[in-house]
């Protein structure tokens, strides 16, 4: 009888694969909509090949061993690609843990005469697959975090549009918190548009900014000052009642900035500055 755990299991690779695939396909949560059974099989074969290529009895108790890094890398890739494909953490976890069932089932068959050895080996394999499970989990989260990071980047880009609402008047509705990196994008976009359109007035609307603390106020003041240096006037609109009171309590001085409660009143002010008159047309006679 072969004393080596891995040595005993290695020749049974194909049977283990069959058991593993059976476990996976039997599971109610199988996502054949996300991955075809053929692809799943190919992925499982590849992982199992890698497992038996790298694993020895010694490394079974040392999941951090450098010789196992090809296995860990492959598992990380599988897990991250699954995260992007939209698998749930449970489904990805089950993928790895169903391998444990297959390995243990094979081992029970091979060691049916030696319960003591079976117990020790079961514990070892169980622990090893658990640590693979942890790797899967970590990389799954990392995969998700990359998705979140990408979305955050996209959001910063779309959340700072500059629109020309009248000839010579620009408006920039700000939504969300104005941190330093976003404040920079805001200022850059606004100044660029002022040059491009030759506008004389820019309205910065902060209705959608939840918190105006001294840092946000400082960014706003800098933007207003920069606009002035370009020869344009900047109006800050959308100052809600509670924001106004908070600004006063904080001791922020916005007296040198033109501020308005609503975008409409800011537009009216801009019309006044540009000497534009908007009138209702007389009713058309029939």
């Amino acid at each position, binding site marked *: 009888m072969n004393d080596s755990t891995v040595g005993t299991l290695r020749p049974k690779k194909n049977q283990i694969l069959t058991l593993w695939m059976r476990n996976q396909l039997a599971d109610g949560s199988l996502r054949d909509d996300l991955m075809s059974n053929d692809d799943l099989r190919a992925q499982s074969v590849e992982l199992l090949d890698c497992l038996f290529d790298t694993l020895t009895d010694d490394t079974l108790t040392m999941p951090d061993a450098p010789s196992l890094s090809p296995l860990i890398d492959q598992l990380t890739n599988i897990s991250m690609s699954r995260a992007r494909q939209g698998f749930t953490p449970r489904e990805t976890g089950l993928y790895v843990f169903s391998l444990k069932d297959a390995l243990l089932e094979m081992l029970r068959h091979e060691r049916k005469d030696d319960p003591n050895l079976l117990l020790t080996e079961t514990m070892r394999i169980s622990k090893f697959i658990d640590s693979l499970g942890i790797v899967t989990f970590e990389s799954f989260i990392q995969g998700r975090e990359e998705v979140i990071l990408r979305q955050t980047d996209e959001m910063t880009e779309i959340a700072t549009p500059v629109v020309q609402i009248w000839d010579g008047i620009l408006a920039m509705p700000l939504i969300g918190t104005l*941190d330093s990196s976003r404040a920079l994008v805001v200022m850059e976009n606004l100044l660029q548009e002022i040059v491009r359109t030759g506008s004389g007035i820019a309205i910065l609307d902060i209705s959608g900014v*939840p*918190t105006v603390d*001294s840092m946000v106020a400082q960014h706003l003041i800098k933007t207003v000052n920069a606009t002035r240096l370009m020869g344009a006037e900047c109006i800050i609109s959308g100052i809600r009642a*509670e*924001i106004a*009171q908070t600004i006063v*309590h904080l001791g922020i001085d916005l007296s040198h900035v033109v501020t308005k409660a609503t975008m409409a009143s800011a537009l009216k002010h801009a019309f006044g500055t540009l000497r534009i008159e908007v009138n209702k047309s007389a009713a058309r006679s029939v």
Partner: protein
Amino acid sequence: MPIPATIEVLTSETFAILEGSHVIQLTGQIRQQASQMGMSLLDQTKLSTAASELARNILVHGGEGKAQLECIRSNSKIGIRLLFSDRGPGIANVEQAMQPGFSTGIGMGLGLSGAKQLADEFHLTSVVGEGTTVTILKWVND
């Protein structure tokens, strides 16, 4: 002499302040908690703005730290208490640091004085070389 009111902590939650996005998360959480407890919109804004100032102070001066959000009760009043602590360099001259407009950083120097104005109670302890702890408190409809 008034009997010192005992404060009972109903719930307590700790948040790590390591980067800018944590400040936004914290203020959002405070807003949600405050509105659940029935705090007026003005007081919600005041409290979350004060929290934003103090959490940013942690990032600017202390590097990193943590914030503790507590719902408290004292006699018949309920409120929110926030504790901000870091292991930064500490404040050498607290009196000077509390002056509006005084800043050792690049900000406007309104953080500490502003937070004190916005909160109902404000308490600061700082040991040079060990760190700073700021506690603020806001009662619901006080």
